[in-house]
């Protein structure tokens, strides 16, 4: 039961975060939100008895992807100036 509640809360937050990611004004915030979404997904993966996947999602989906996004965004901003 606790698991259900936790996952529901997590789910609501995830949906909220994903909407933020799409609709926030600042791109940095959007990218961060996507990263946070990924992190939360990885927590949910843990709940779903998938530690391997959780680890991968955290390391690749969350950390690395966000880093790549930021590198590119940075680059674009630099070009703009």
């Amino acid at each position, binding site marked *: 039961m606790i*698991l*259900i509640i936790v*996952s*529901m809360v*997590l*789910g609501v937050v*995830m*949906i909220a975060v*994903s*909407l933020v*990611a*799409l609709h926030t004004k600042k*791109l940095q915030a*959007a*990218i961060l939100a*996507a990263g946070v*979404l*990924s992190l939360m*997904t990885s927590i*949910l*993966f843990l*709940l*779903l*008895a*998938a*530690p*391997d*996947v959780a680890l*991968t*999602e955290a390391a*690749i*989906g969350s950390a*690395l*992807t966000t880093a*790549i*996004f930021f590198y*590119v*965004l940075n*680059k*674009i901003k630099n*070009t*703009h100036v």
Partner: protein
Amino acid sequence: MNFFSVQGISLTIGFILILIGLWGILTQRNLIRIIIGFTIFNNGVNLIIVALAYMKGRTAPIIDQVVTRTDAVDKVADPIPQALVLTAIVIGVGVTAVMLSYTLRMYRAKHSLEINVFTESKW
């Protein structure tokens, strides 16, 4: 199915994420946001895969002190989708990286990130 279970909730969230991702892909103008839409979309897909592997009350498919070889069959979640989703995640990051490099090049060409600017080839 029972929507009021961990699996049910996870699956539902997964599908909602897919739809939100698609919404982003189809309505956002900014290329970076479209790509964010794709990461959300992929997150949803991955979540669905993992959720399908889940069985109530079961634990990670790793044999150790708690889960012995003999009772593993009744204790662990389905390892196959978990193995698949590893692949899917890695593919996701590869695709995202390539898309972002494309975005970079397109930005250089036109100094814009608006998707409706890039329509040189058409009809």
